[in-house]
């Protein structure tokens, strides 16, 4: 019986079937749902770590201890975990270790479009690229066997389109893999990477790579589908599906393993087909490996280097390059001349506590260094508050450097989860080297961007169990920051007053702007829409400058000024009261002033 599973669900299932007992990761689109699904299986342990490096170290520890283990992260997470990724390639493990690097071509929710197959090659680690959910599940099982057979970690690299597409999967059973060792290994030559031990291990990984290259020639995930010999396509991952869709007659060499590639197989394939083309998203990775072997091939001269593929793109490029006849163009509709349609850019949700924080921050007229999370949306008009965003934890570090270089104050804004991720060492730098940075930790009690995961500040684990909740203020004080204020993020006045006071200081300071994310279930229960008194509203539009989606122009005109009045969408308003606080006409009710009967929608 087949079931429709998302790629991420299939990966979780595969890990369970492979007998994995330990998994650690950090949430990040498109990888997040893997651990959220895995944790629901019996006989497993799974956790959110504070960052990807900690997650991978933890998974390595479990694999050293003889348990099949899994580390999950998005592509940029592997940058954070790269140090661990390299040493574990050197040491190998006692039981299988698989690292999921979920890449994000098109940057649906990422700051860059890096192709992590390069990491696999860099660290001499085999890389498997599933092309649907069934393969995602099966490849995880294969990856553990490969890991143990060759004493190597294995990277499995789904992309967003694989992780978030639903395709049919035939389930298997779990096979337990009890630890092969009785005690924790004492094997310093293998596990203590001092130079004297590391030198022979470098030899080991180069020899292992040669063995993996030989193995790739027989790996069942690499296969040839012979059809017409005019065109031979070498392809991997999701691009395989587009190849089948757009070039149904072409012969295909499908690489389930994109590193190392089975170069003999490629050479045999190349000899038999008239024209050899590589269809792969992002970097010319396979293409370059083929070219290195002296085989003539085309790839990125035909298909785009940047962005995600689609059947459309592949078809159009194929026609342009003469791989398909012009008549392969699909019949299209005649499009009417449309005006430019109103865009729906991502915005901070109604009731988002970051909105009021940014409102206060904007009034300070200081450069603002931002970070990765929902609050990156502080860059969007009308708030337009953020000047830089690079990677997780960068806000505080960049603010410190810029502040030192300019001799001026900077504001760093960072979320609670991001603070735990990589913000703490940067704040240590601010305190230790004494810069005039005002750090605002936007503590909304959850990792909101990726869909409400718990973090070390929330008092809950991935399993939903109670645990210690880290006291951010205590951490900040312990680091040596003397000026620390905890403020309700909905209290715009208090934020502004504190910021003004801290702006006068010659010392580093931290504001912890606290207020749970408005999307949390317990917060949803407290929604209480506000309303605007049309008698008082003069259409000045100050409230609209908050960028709250619950506010919009009404059809009513304010006679004296001729401006359009504003009204509140009761279905969207949560009652955060920011608009009520900023309204110069006091036209918006506070919760305490509302007469609920008068404006609640008829339910």
């Amino acid at each position, binding site marked *: 019986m087949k079931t*429709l599973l998302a790629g991420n669900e299939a990966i979780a299932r595969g890990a369970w079937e492979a007998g994995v007992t330990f998994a650690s990761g950090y949430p990040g689109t498109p990888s997040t749902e893997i651990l959220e699904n895995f944790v629901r299986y019996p006989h497993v342990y799974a956790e959110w770590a504070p960052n990807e490096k900690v997650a991978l170290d933890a998974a390595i520890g479990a694999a050293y201890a003889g348990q099949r283990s899994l580390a999950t992260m998005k592509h940029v997470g592997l940058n954070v975990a790269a140090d661990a990724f390299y040493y574990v390639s050197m040491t190998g493990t006692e039981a299988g270790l698989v690292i999921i690097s979920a890449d994000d071509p098109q940057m649906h929710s990422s700051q860059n479009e890096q192709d992590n197959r390069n990491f696999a090659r860099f660290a001499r680690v085999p890389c498997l690229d599933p092309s*649907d959910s069934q393969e995602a599940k099966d490849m995880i099982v294969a990856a553990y066997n490969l890991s143990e057979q060759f004493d190597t970690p294995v990277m499995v690299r789904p992309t967003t389109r694989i992780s978030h597409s*639903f395709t049919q999967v035939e389930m298997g059973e779990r096979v337990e893999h009890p630890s092969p060792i009785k005690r924790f290994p004492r094997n310093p030559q293998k596990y203590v990477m001092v130079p004297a031990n590391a030198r022979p291990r470098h030899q080991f990984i180069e020899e292992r790579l040669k063995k993996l290259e030989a193995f790739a020639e027989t790996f069942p995930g690499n296969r040839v589908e012979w059809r017409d010999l005019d065109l031979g396509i070498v392809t991997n991952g999701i691009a395989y599906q587009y190849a089948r869709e*757009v070039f149904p007659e072409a012969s295909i060499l499908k690489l389930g393993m994109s590193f190392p590639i089975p170069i003999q197989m490629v050479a045999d394939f190349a000899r038999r087909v008239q024209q050899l083309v590589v269809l792969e998203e992002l970097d010319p990775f396979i293409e370059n490996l083929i070219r290195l072997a002296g085989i003539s091939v085309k790839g990125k001269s035909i298909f785009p280097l940047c962005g995600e593929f689609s059947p459309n793109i592949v078809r159009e490029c194929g026609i342009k390059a003469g791989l398909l006849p012009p008549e392969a163009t699909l019949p299209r509709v005649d*499009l009417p001349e449309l005006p430019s349609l109103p865009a729906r850019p991502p915005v901070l949700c109604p009731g988002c506590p970051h909105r009021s924080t940014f409102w206060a921050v904007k009034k300070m007229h200081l450069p603002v260094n931002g970070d990765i999370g929902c609050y990156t949306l502080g860059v969007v008009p009308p708030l337009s508050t953020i000047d830089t965003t690079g990677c997780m934890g960068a806000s505080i570090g960049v603010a410190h450097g810029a502040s030192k270089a300019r001799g001026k104050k900077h504001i760093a804004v960072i979320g609670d989860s991001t603070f735990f991720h990589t913000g703490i060492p940067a704040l240590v730098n601010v305190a230790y080297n004494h810069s005039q940075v005002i750090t605002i930790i936007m503590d909304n009690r959850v990792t909101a961007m990726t869909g409400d995961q718990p973090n070390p500040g929330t008092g809950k684990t991935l399993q939903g169990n109670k645990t210690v909740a880290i006291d951010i203020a205590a951490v900040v004080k312990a680091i040596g920051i003397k000026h620390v204020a905890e403020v309700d993020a909905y209290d715009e006045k208090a934020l502004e007053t504190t910021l003004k006071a801290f702006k006068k200081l010659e010392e580093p300071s931290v504001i912890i702007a606290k207020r749970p994310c408005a999307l949390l279930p317990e917060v949803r229960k407290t929604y209480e829409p506000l309303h605007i008194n049309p008698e008082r509203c003069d259409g000045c539009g100050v409230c609209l400058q908050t960028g709250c989606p619950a506010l919009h122009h009404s059809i009513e005109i304010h006679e004296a000024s001729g401006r359009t009045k504003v009204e509140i969408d009761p279905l*969207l308003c949560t009652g955060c009261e920011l608009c009520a606080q900023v309204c110069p006409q006091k036209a918006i009710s506070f919760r305490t002033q509302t007469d609920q009967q008068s404006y609640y929608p008829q339910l």
Partner: protein
Amino acid sequence: MKQRINFLLAGVGGQGVLTASNILSAVGLAVGYDVKKSEVHGMSQRGGNVTSHVRWGEKVYAPLIGGGEVDFLMAFEAVESLRYLEMLRPEATIIADNHQIIPITVTDGAASYPSQEAIDSWLRQVTPHVFWVPGMAIAEKMGNARVANIVLLGFLAALLRMPDDVWHNALVRWVPKKVLALNEEALAAGRALNKAPAE
């Protein structure tokens, strides 16, 4: 059985686009198709546009529908019906809710929202098979705006002429038990509309 049917579902975050595509996928599987479903939503918080591609076929390869291959466009919000017209196959069917959700870009004056008449005329320039289904209005009358998506599915169910029980089973699989009856009612309301289609 048709060889292949491609559905593009478009709406705004929070409108139940993903639930609708789950139900549609379950129906396809139940009647014996291979099914693939893929969601495109990027950084969509509430208020962002959301699309879902659902493909039924004997064997489906790409989870994304190619340009010119959409058979049914289901738009759960009026202006969203216009965003993906280049994806439609000639003679495609459009089922759209005339409900409007005003984007923030309109609120802050950067863009304007086209009139219902204009939207309708543009759609009809693309295909004669345009059906306006007041899903939101019906759902609100039923007391729960969240089943507007199901009203549109009900209309589609009537067009596709597939057995009632596959839709029923799909609802059982994908909607919470306590609102199952309401969803059944919404599906039936959508079906009933198709008896006198306002094409």
